[in-house]
């Protein structure tokens, strides 16, 4: 789980996260016949975000195919295929459109190994484009990671850059266990210089993205760039903020996160989802439980409000931006230290 690995492709190139994901699918399919990709519009169209672009053309329509429009059907069929020797990678078109599959995910995907005392494992990946920032309409911008993270039996990972997208998706497909792979859709088109052959930590490891000494920002997925930008602004104002990117929500990398927080003594969790009973709550809780006496101030949250995700013109109100993050940092009782 915590091992690092090279992934075959070597050398630096400029890639978007969407392209990196497509590359990961392509490589996994080429390497392993049992990897199959299906969902709504993933065939000829290549998915509404083009993540599966060209896969049907390259591998044929038994390896990458469109299904009837039914998410429970997609996930349920994937369960059966995984039971019978395949490694299905299914796409849910948007976050809120995975909800029809919720029973299959919680009652079967998450529990099959447990139910059968490991006699049946389900090596499958459920890809879910999630979160806001693209001006999407209702039901297209939910941050739904907490539902899955709260469900024992699922791995939940979410990349924040192209290299991780590639590395983590490769690892998710190779995993013997089901992985809910949450793709921050607002980062799909961010182009980056990446080395797909680089050795990167796998599922279960967080990474410190920026060193800093005054406080630690803990973020994942779409909030990592926000945290990095906030750290940049803070630096100009003379405050040194460290940024940790979780990468993997389940398993959670207590080691890296706690070491980081202990080194600064202050922390802010940044996440888009409504804060109540969320992944951010968990991070605050576990960091506090584990680092209490290293903390100079309570861990703060710069998170989404407990409201349904707003329409495009108001989404900026909901999304934690640099200002909300820095407000939370300001709140860390600096006068007491």
């Amino acid at each position, binding site marked *: 789980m915590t091992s690092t690995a090279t992934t075959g492709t070597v050398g630096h190139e400029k890639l978007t996260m969407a392209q990196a994901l497509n590359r990961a699918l392509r490589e996994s399919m080429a390497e392993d016949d049992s990897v199959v990709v299906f969902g*709504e*519009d993933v*065939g*000829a*169209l*290549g998915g*509404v975000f083009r993540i599966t672009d060209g896969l049907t053309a390259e591998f044929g329509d038994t390896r990458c195919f*469109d*299904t*009837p*429009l*039914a998410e*429970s*059907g997609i996930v349920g069929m994937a369960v059966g295929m995984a039971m019978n020797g395949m490694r299905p990678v299914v796409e849910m078109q948007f976050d*809120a*459109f995975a*909800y*029809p599959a919720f029973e299959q995910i919680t009652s079967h995907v998450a529990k099959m190994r447990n139910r059968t005392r490991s006699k049946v494992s389900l090596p499958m990946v459920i890809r879910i484009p999630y979160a806001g920032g693209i*001006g999407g*309409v*209702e*039901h*297209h911008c939910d941050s739904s990671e907490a539902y899955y993270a709260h469900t024992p039996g699922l791995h939940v990972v979410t990349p924040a850059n192209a290299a991780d997208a590639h590395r983590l998706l490769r690892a998710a497909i190779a995993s013997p266990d089901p992985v809910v792979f949450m793709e921050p859709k607002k980062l799909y088109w961010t182009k980056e210089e990446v080395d797909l052959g680089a050795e990167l930590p796998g599922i279960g490891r967080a990474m410190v993205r920026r060193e800093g000494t005054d406080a630690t920002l803990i973020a994942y997925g779409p909030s990592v760039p926000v945290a990095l930008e906030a750290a940049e602004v803070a630096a100009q104002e003379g405050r040194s903020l460290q940024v940790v990117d979780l990468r993997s929500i389940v398993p959670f990398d207590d080691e890296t996160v706690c070491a980081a927080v202990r080194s600064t003594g202050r922390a802010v969790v940044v996440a888009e989802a409504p804060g*109540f009973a969320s992944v951010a709550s968990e991070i605050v809780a576990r960091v506090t439980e584990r680092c209490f006496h290293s903390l100079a101030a309570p861990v703060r949250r710069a998170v989404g*409000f*407990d*409201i*349904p995700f*707003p*329409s*495009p*013109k*108001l989404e900026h*109100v*909901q999304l934690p931006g640099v*200002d*909300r993050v820095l*407000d939370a940092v300001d709140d860390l009782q600096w006068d007491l230290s």
Partner: protein
Amino acid sequence: MTRDLDLLLPSPHPVELIDPTGQTVAEAAHELPDDAALLRAFAGLTTARRINDQAGALARQGRLAVYPSSHGQEACQVAAAQVLTDDDWLFPTYRDTAAVVIRGVDVAEAFLPLQGAWHSGYDPHRYKVAPQATPLATQLLHAVGVAHAARLRGEPTVALALCGDGATSEGDFHEALNFAAVFRAPVVFLVQNNQYAISVPLARQSVAPSLAHKGIGYGVPGERVDGNDVAALLTVLGTAMARARAGEGPQLVEAHTYRMQPHTNADDSRRYRQDDEVAGWVQRDPLTRLETWLRQHDLLDDAQLAAVTADADQLAARMRTELARDATPEPAELFAHVYATPTPQLVEQAAVVADELSREDEH
């Protein structure tokens, strides 16, 4: 039993009353609607087409966040609105904005979500039009509930619930038809089979003889109709509504039509279908066929056409003016409409936002 099956199964061919060339279909099993209804439908078709054209233009100009056009499906849009009485409820999808407007919803209110300003812009109770639904097939169950509640109170309401061919694959479609049947709820389900669910053609969606054949599995009569023939739609839907209103239970109607444009303005339909397929459907345009028929029957002359067109022009002008305005509600509303009374948590959070915004204003 045999008789039962005949009542439940659709007729062997989709009902068509006016053919694509504008001629009355000989020996049709159903009667044509009366002249007034057809003239009203023609005005509706003209309006619907104009709404699609104007909204498409506004989307291209970036004045709408997105627009799923019903170009080609206007006959369904018009018939769905026209068969309703004031007591009836309409349950539209994201693609049915034209039907919503023809039902009477103010165009500025109807387009608010497409401007990106709020999820729904009109008062559903005022117009008896549910919010346009995005999660596929979910609204069909709401229609059953509205209809069942009305029936329990002895009200004459019928709910007309719309969905697409793709949506018929969702579990909620199944549950809605079954609940409606078991409770004999006054609901008419109109499936606009426009041949595609985004990129997925009907053949990958279903291998049933037709979508209307699904009805029998619930004990619900199914019927197929040429979805570009507004006359046939008015007759078949009108009969279904009357039947439901009379307490005879739900009905399933499948309309064969075609989505002439991409799924939304953001879609690239050349990735999954050929131009000549689209061209074939131009020959079946719902407007031209009714116009031909009306002219042949001396029910429409140039002056009348000009009047109808002028009305549509006026609506389009209103769209341009109204949709140029930014009608986005205050951020505070985000916290006001989660519960009837905001929770203490939301009161705190609203204050955070008020503070953030006031400091932004200072800058």
